[in-house]
């Protein structure tokens, strides 16, 4: 069966958009987790000044809409002479926003580790570094993974905002076609399915990881 020209054009565009979406999501997810770990660790163990800075960072990025953060980066920064490409602006926005939320999960995970776990390690002659590597991190990872995974799923959905700063990904490609043919229901219905596919895939992968890391006493709930 031959697809009509509309659908042929639609799928070519959407697939191109999908590639761009993935190119936005992957580095932002990785960057977000890394920033989240650093900021989360500082918010838990840092000295007063670093902690205040990290707390403010998290509060600002969690307290304002992502779309405003993107606008500040892309449309705002040129006012002070900084010009970012749409892709860079989008990835930076996603990374910093995601990192703020991730820091919350990392912090929660670190706080949930009882002080007895440090004591137990030290009493056996572990150095501080050994305690962190062999005791704290393996536990924190298991406590944080569920929340961090959920945050990545949010990120997948919010990558749809990149088109607003003219980085044309899945939603942007779809919008162009939908406007051209004025067929919004089909186009955005299909885009919805694309995102459902991405999100469902991510959920399955995360569940597999969670299962693999599962240890009695560390499950979610």
């Amino acid at each position, binding site marked *: 069966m031959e697809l009509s020209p509309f659908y042929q054009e639609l799928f070519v565009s959407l697939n191109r958009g999908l590639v761009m979406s993935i190119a936005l999501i992957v580095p932002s997810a990785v960057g977000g987790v890394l920033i989240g770990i650093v900021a989360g660790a500082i918010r838990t163990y840092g000295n007063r000044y670093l902690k205040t800075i990290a707390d403010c960072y998290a509060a600002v990025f969690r307290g304002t809409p992502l779309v405003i953060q993107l606008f500040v980066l892309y449309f705002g920064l040129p006012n002070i002479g900084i010009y970012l490409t749409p892709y860079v602006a989008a990835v930076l926005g996603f990374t910093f926003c995601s990192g703020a939320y991730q820091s919350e999960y990392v912090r929660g995970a670190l706080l949930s580790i009882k002080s007895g776990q440090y*004591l137990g390690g030290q009493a056996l002659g572990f150095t501080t570094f050994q305690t962190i590597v062999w*005791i704290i991190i393996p536990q924190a990872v298991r406590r944080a993974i569920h929340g961090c995974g959920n945050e990545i799923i949010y990120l997948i959905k919010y990558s749809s905002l990149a088109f607003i700063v003219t980085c044309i990904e899945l939603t942007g490609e779809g919008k162009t076609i939908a406007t051209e043919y004025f067929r919004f229901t089909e186009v955005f219905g299909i885009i919805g399915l694309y995102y459902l596919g991405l999100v469902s895939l991510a959920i399955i992968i995360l569940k597999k990881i969670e299962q693999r890391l599962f*240890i*009695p006493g560390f499950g979610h709930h």
Partner: protein
Amino acid sequence: MTEKMVILRVNNLSKSFGDSTILNSVSIELAKGEIKVLIGPSGGGKSTLLQCINCLVVPDAGEIELDNARIQFTRKQDIYRLRQQVGMIFQDFNLFDHLTALDNITIALRKVKKMPKKEAEKRARLELEQVGLGDKETLYPAQLSGGQKQRVAIARALAMDPKILLLDEPTSALDPTLIGEVISVIKGLAVKGMTMIMATHQISLIYNLADEILFMENGRIVEQGPPAALLAAGNKSKSQGFCDRLNELSEVEG
């Protein structure tokens, strides 16, 4: 009595947190194979003393000598070496929650003592057998009862071949029905000649194991002596009064 071989010397140990003095110039001399039992009201400094001996809490002043070698509190290497040679059993076990019973024991052997994996596992299995948990090696702390957790903790400490074992109220977080299994393991250690300092409220441990009782109050050792002397009938010692109250309590509890 034969010549004592002193293994641990604690001289004038002091520790304050803010304004409150928790330890006030405490001295102890521990011979090889000796068992000292710390008793006294809670808040008297027993726990802090044990943690200071292991440098989990660094003392403000005083000296610790292990095997005639003075520990420099400012030298990390000294502190790590001290901790490897002085085992610690906590009230709330402090097993590593993400590791199986076996790995709880092997991790320190492998990472601190740099023992090969096979050898560490062999040693760990041996220790688990000793505390009667040979069949539980694959279970995680969340799957063990309190008594089993404490026995794993003891096995973990023993696997490091400590010269001294410090026990900080090892049975007080346990259900009454689970205390017995831990007490019998500790008694087994005593039979084998383990050198120990133990804070406890268990009358049977105090009566049967102690070579010497140290009664702590307000950060000081206010009484010390062998149980036969301190707890002799008609002796009006603080230790006597304290043990009488413990006895009454255990009778009320049934």
